[in-house]
C-alpha cells in the first residue's frame, strides 16, 4: 500500500467516527447560528407565528431599534456592571483561596477545598431561591448578621442600588470554587526551585508572589478570566429567579431581555438581534484578553 492509500483509508474511517458528533453539532449548533443571524434581519413576531407570510426582511431595523431602545441599554449596562464587579472579585477570591490552600502548613486541605467547591456543583436555580430568602429584608440571615454589628437592614433585592451587588455576591459565592481549582493546578505547576532560589536571594513572600507566582500564573489567569467573562456575560437565572430583572430594571441582563422579547412576547427577530449583540460583545472581550496577554509577555 502506498502512503496515499493509507491516508485516504484513514480519512474515511475518521469521517465515520467523526460524523455523529460533527453532524449533530453542525445541524443543531452551526445552522441555528446562521439562522439566528438571518432572523435578526426580519420582523419575525407573533403575527408571523400564525402566518409566515407576515415575515418581512427589514434590514438593519432591529439593530437600529435596539440602538434607540432604553431598556436594551439598561440591560447592557447591567450586564457590564455585573461582569466588571463579579469577574475580578471572583478571580481575586479564588486566587486567594488557591494560594491559602496551596500553602504547605495547611492541614485537611481536601476538606476545605471541598467546602469551597460545593456551591459550584449545586443547581443554580435552587441556590438562587435560597439566596432570595437569605436576602429577605425582614427575615433574611444577612440582615440579621448585619444587625448584630449595628448596621440597619438593607432591602437587598428591593433597592435598585443594592440588587446588582447582591447578585454579584451570590454569583461569586457560586463560582469561585471552580476558578480556585484551576488556580490550584496552575500553582502546582510552578517549579518549586524558583521559590527556593528567591528565598536564597532574600525575597519576602510578597515579593515572591509578585515576581514568581503572578507571572507564572499569567496563562492560567487569562484562561480563568476568559471563561469567567464568557460565563458571566450570559447572566440569566439569577435575576430571573431573584428579582425578575427589577427593581427599576436594575438587574435585567442582556440574556434576560433577549428571553423576554423572544419567548415571552414572541418578537423573535428583535430577540435574535439582541443575541447577536451578545455574541459580538463576547467576541470582542475575548480578543481584548488575548491582546492584553500578548502585550504582557513581550
Amino acid at each position, binding site marked *: 500500500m502506498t502512503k496515499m492509500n493509507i491516508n485516504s483509508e484513514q480519512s474515511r474511517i475518521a469521517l465515520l467516527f467523526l460524523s455523529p458528533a460533527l453532524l449533530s453539532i453542525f445541524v443543531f449548533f452551526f445552522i441555528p447560528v446562521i439562522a439566528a443571524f438571518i432572523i435578526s434581519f426580519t*420582523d419575525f*413576531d*407573533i*403575527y408571523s*407565528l*400564525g*402566518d409566515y407570510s*407576515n415575515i418581512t426582511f427589514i434590514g438593519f431595523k432591529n439593530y437600529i*431599534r435596539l440602538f434607540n431602545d*432604553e*431598556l436594551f441599554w439598561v440591560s447592557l449596562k447591567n450586564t457590564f456592571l455585573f461582569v466588571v464587579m463579579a469577574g475580578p472579585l471572583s478571580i481575586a477570591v479564588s486566587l486567594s483561596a488557591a494560594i491559602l490552600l496551596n500553602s504547605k502548613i495547611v492541614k485537611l486541605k481536601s476538606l476545605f477545598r471541598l467546602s469551597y467547591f460545593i456551591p459550584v456543583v449545586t443547581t443554580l436555580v435552587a441556590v438562587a431561591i435560597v439566596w432570595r430568602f437569605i436576602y*429577605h*429584608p*425582614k427575615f433574611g440571615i444577612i440582615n440579621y448578621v448585619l444587625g448584630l454589628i449595628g448596621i440597619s437592614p438593607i*432591602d437587598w*433585592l*428591593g*433597592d*435598585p442600588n443594592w440588587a446588582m451587588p447582591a447578585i454579584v455576591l451570590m454569583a461569586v459565592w457560586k463560582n469561585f470554587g471552580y476558578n480556585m481549582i484551576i488556580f490550584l493546578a496552575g500553582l502546582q505547576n510552578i517549579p518549586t526551585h524558583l521559590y527556593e532560589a528567591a528565598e536564597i536571594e532574600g525575597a519576602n513572600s510578597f515579593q515572591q508572589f509578585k515576581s514568581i507566582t503572578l507571572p507564572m500564573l499569567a496563562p492560567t489567569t487569562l484562561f480563568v478570566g476568559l471563561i469567567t467573562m464568557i460565563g458571566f456575560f450570559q447572566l440569566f437565572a439569577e435575576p430571573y429567579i431573584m428579582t*425578575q430583572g*427589577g*427593581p*427599576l*430594571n436594575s438587574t435585567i441582563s442582556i440574556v434576560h431581555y433577549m428571553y*423576554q422579547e423572544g*419567548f*415571552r*412576547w*414572541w418578537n423573535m427577530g428583535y430577540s435574535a438581534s439582541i443575541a447577536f449583540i451578545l455574541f459580538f460583545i463576547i467576541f470582542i472581550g475575548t480578543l481584548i484578553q488575548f491582546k492584553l496577554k500578548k502585550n504582557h509577555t513581550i
Partner: protein
Amino acid sequence: MNKSLSIAVIITLIFLSGCKNNSNEIRTINFWAMGAEGEYVQKLIPEFEKLNPGLKVKVQMIPWTAAQEKLITAFASNNLPDVFQLGNTWIPQFSVIGAIESLDNLIMKSKNVNEENYFKGIWETNRINGKVYGIPWYIDTRLLFYRADILSKVGYDSPPKTWKELFDASLKIKNLFGAVEKYPIYLPVNEFAPYVIFALENKATILRENDSYGNFAQKEFVEAFKFAMSFYEHNLTPLGISQVTNIYQAFRDEYIVMYISGPWNIKEFTKWMIDEYSEKWMTAPMPSKDGNYPGVSLAGGASLVISKNCNQKAEAWKFIEYLSDSKVQREFYSISSDLPALKQVWEDSSFKYNKHMRAFYEQFQNVVPTPKVPEWEQIAFSKIQQYAELTSRKVLSVEDAMKKLDKEVDNILEKRRELIKQKKIAS
C-alpha cells in the same frame, strides 16, 4: 430515509384513525384547562359522558405560568386541542393568529348559550371585531379587599366609595399606625390592574386610532396615574415589592390594610384569616372617581374556545354548552370556588347572602375589557408596570413617564399599524 418512512407511517395512522370516526364509534374531545381548573373540571366529565354516549372528554392540565407559551407553541405545531380554556385577555392574540374559531353561528342555534345570560362587560371581552370567539366559563374582576376593623377605627364604618375617601382613609390609617412600619394600602408596581382601573374610572381611553397607538399622555390617564402615585408620595404603600412575601400573612398582621385584587384570593384569605380574624376582612366594589359608585373595574376570567383545526366542532360545542349549563356552573363553583359566569347562578342564596360575594356581584355590573389587541399583554405586563415602577421611585415625573410609555407602546404596535395598512387585519 428512516425518518420519512416513519412520517409516512404516522400520516397513514392519522388518516386511518380519522376514517374510523364513524357514527357509532366513540369520539374523544380533547380539552385543555389551566392550573387547578384542569383538576377540578375532571369531576364534571363523567356526567357529560353519561349524557352524551359516544363522546369522551380527555382533559389535560397546563400550568398558568407557561400557559400562553404552551398554547402558542401548540398552535404553531398544529397541536391545539378541540376545546380549551383561554384567559379572556388572550382572546385577541389567539383570534388574530387564526388559532380559534368564531362561535356566532353556534350561539345563534344554541338553546342555552345566550349573550343575555352573561354580565355585559365580561361577554364583551370575547367579541373581537364584531365576532364572538369565546364563551365565559368563570369570571373575575378586581375590587377592594380591606380590614373592616381598622377602617372603622378611623371612622369608616363602610368602605371608601370615592377616590377622595380612599385617600383620606389611607391617610388616617397611616396616622393611626404612627411610626410603625405598616401601610394602609398595597399597590405593587408589578400588578398593572389598579393603575389601569383608575385610568378607566377617569374615563381614559388606553389606546387610540384603532388601538394602534398608545394614549397614555392624555390628561385623563395622567391624572389617574398621579392619583395612584399620591399613595407613594405620602408613604401610604410599600415601595418595592420585596417586603411582602405573603400578602395573606401581611393582611393578618395589619402590615397591609387594603388591597385591590381578585376573587382567587378569597380562598386564601379564608384560610389565613381564621378565628378572631375571620370577621375582620371584607370586600367592596372599587371606589369611583366621583359619586358613581361602584367604580369601573376590569372584566377578567376565563373563556372556553374552539380551535380552528378542530374537526368535530358540533361535539366540541356540546361540551361548551354542557359547561355553560346553570346546574354545571353551580357545581363547578362548589368544587373550584371560581365565580360562575352565568348571572342566573348569582341569584342563588349562597351568593346573595355571602358577605364576601356581594361586592363581586355589584362590581360585575360595571366591568370593561382591556384593549383587545394581541400586544396588550406585553404593554401591560412589561411597559405599564415598568413605568409605574419608575414613577413610584420618582425617577420620572408622571408626565414624562407617560410620554415615554406612549413612545414605547407606539413601537410595539408598529407591526399592527403596518398590517392594518395592508388590510391583513381588520381595523
